[in-house]
């Protein structure tokens, strides 16, 4: 029972091919709405959380508790003039922010959300190779950022893009290797170890407990992926203005801004799925999605605290850290989990 089949049943009066199309359409709309709403909520949460941690109040003039603040921001960004730099590389400049936002939305489609009462499983797309698909989609966003930096012909943006590239290549390999360890462990129990859903469903203990090294490597990689402090070298407010997005204005900038927060949310979902048991928990048949949400929310709050309290790490130190510490740690993790699987058969 999934959201798709629920919708299919709902639209069954239209006849087969039409009902199928309608179900897909509405599912996509549902996903887009939910993703954008959660993004808006994320940004609101971040602002409120930041304000409270900094002994302030945060937005409270627009709507009750400032809940409509983000709507106002969107209204403003929409009517802002979108400037184009004179020497830009036109096509990449235009598609870069779109790539970021599309990559983000696609990634949300691959994640299994668990089930929720009447609707059943909220997962949108359940393929047998969702792990590969997810990480393929995740690597679209950095391309968008790099394109943005190079195509705007701005020295600050270029430097930001260069930093982003250097950062991306130094954390992606450890991230993949630590996921590999999970797939390896999962393959002992499930016939479809490349499907996130089956990895989560068949786990005995959350992998975070089995692989303490793995979770730390993956967490660092996810922070770097979302590129907030301490790993916001690509944007680095105080050094490179705003890095690769320096030349962007209006809604195009809004897309980058949403992309940043989307990455945090996405990262929290992925970490809680892989390492913290995802939608597993008491009554997961009905409350699976709620469990996932709670776990992700806690991770989001932790990310915000890291963001607000950490200084920016230097780019060469991060590259060093990625290749000299993260990569060997991920390898060690792989070996240990292999040995663990062999010995215990988990």
């Amino acid at each position, binding site marked *: 029972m999934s959201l798709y089949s629920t919708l299919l049943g709902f639209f069954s009066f239209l006849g087969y091919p039409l009902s199928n199309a309608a179900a897909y359409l509405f599912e996509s709309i549902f996903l887009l709405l939910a993703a954008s709403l959660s993004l808006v909520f994320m940004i609101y949460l971040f*602002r409120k959380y930041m*304000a409270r941690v*900094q*002994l*302030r*109040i*945060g*937005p*409270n*003039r*627009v709507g009750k508790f*400032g809940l409509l*603040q983000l*709507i*106002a*921001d*969107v*209204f*403003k960004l*929409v*009517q*802002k*003039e*979108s*400037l184009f730099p004179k020497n830009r590389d036109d096509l990449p400049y235009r598609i870069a922010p779109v790539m970021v936002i599309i990559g983000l939305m696609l990634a949300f489609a691959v994640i299994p959300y668990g089930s929720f009462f009447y609707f059943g499983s909220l997962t949108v797309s359940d393929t047998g190779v969702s792990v590969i698909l997810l990480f393929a989609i995740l690597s679209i966003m950095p391309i968008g950022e790099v394109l943005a930096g190079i195509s705007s012909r701005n020295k600050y943006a270029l430097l930001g893009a260069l930093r982003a590239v250097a950062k991306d290549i130094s954390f992606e390999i450890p991230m993949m290797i630590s996921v590999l360890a999970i797939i390896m462990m999962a393959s002992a129990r499930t016939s479809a170890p490349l499907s996130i859903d089956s990895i989560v469903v068949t786990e005995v203990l959350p992998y975070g407990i089995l692989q303490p090294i793995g979770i730390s490597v993956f967490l660092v990689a996810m922070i770097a992926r979302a590129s907030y402090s301490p790993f916001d070298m690509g944007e680095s*407010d*105080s050094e490179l*203005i*705003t890095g690769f*997005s*320096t*030349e*962007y*204005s*209006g809604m195009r*900038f809004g897309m980058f801004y949403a992309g940043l927060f989307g990455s945090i949310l996405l990262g929290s979902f992925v970490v809680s799925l892989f390492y913290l048991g995802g939608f597993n928990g008491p009554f997961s048949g009905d409350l699976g999605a709620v469990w996932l949400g709670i776990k992700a929310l806690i991770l989001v709050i932790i990310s915000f605290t890291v963001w607000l309290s950490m200084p920016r790490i230097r780019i060469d130190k991060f590259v060093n850290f990625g290749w000299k510490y993260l990569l060997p740690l991920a390898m060690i993790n792989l070996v240990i989990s292999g040995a663990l699987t062999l010995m215990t058969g988990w």
Partner: protein
Amino acid sequence: MKSGEPGALVTTLEKALTWGRSNSIWPLTMGLACCAIEMMGTQASQLDISRFGSEIFRNSPRQSDLMIVAGTVTKKMAPRLKRLYDEMPFPKYVIAMGVCVIQGGPYVHGYSVVLGVDRVVPVDVYVPGCPPTPEALTYGIMTLQKKIRGETDR
């Protein structure tokens, strides 16, 4: 006008857009001199400008709506200020903070200070004081909000 007619829809839409514009003013970090510290004070916990939606001080002129010219504009700085203003996308606003930017302030008899930033860029709201207290600047921002909504022209 009856509701349902296109005119009413346009008015409502315009109202909504104006509402959005007036409630989400992102200032550019344009700290020049003394007033910059009080501008930071406005941003800080005591007065917390984020309550009005002006939380995000953007460093890039491309992403900001409001230029708070905080501090003396010297003749050497004026061309740069003009360029930064030109780099901002429409709709954009300018608040002249402090007497130095209004009419030259304490340096009115000197040789290297621009006597009023309105000679360089058009100004929407003038906030006198040397420096204006964070409350006074907040009042200035509220005046700007009112001006955007068309409620005041004084």
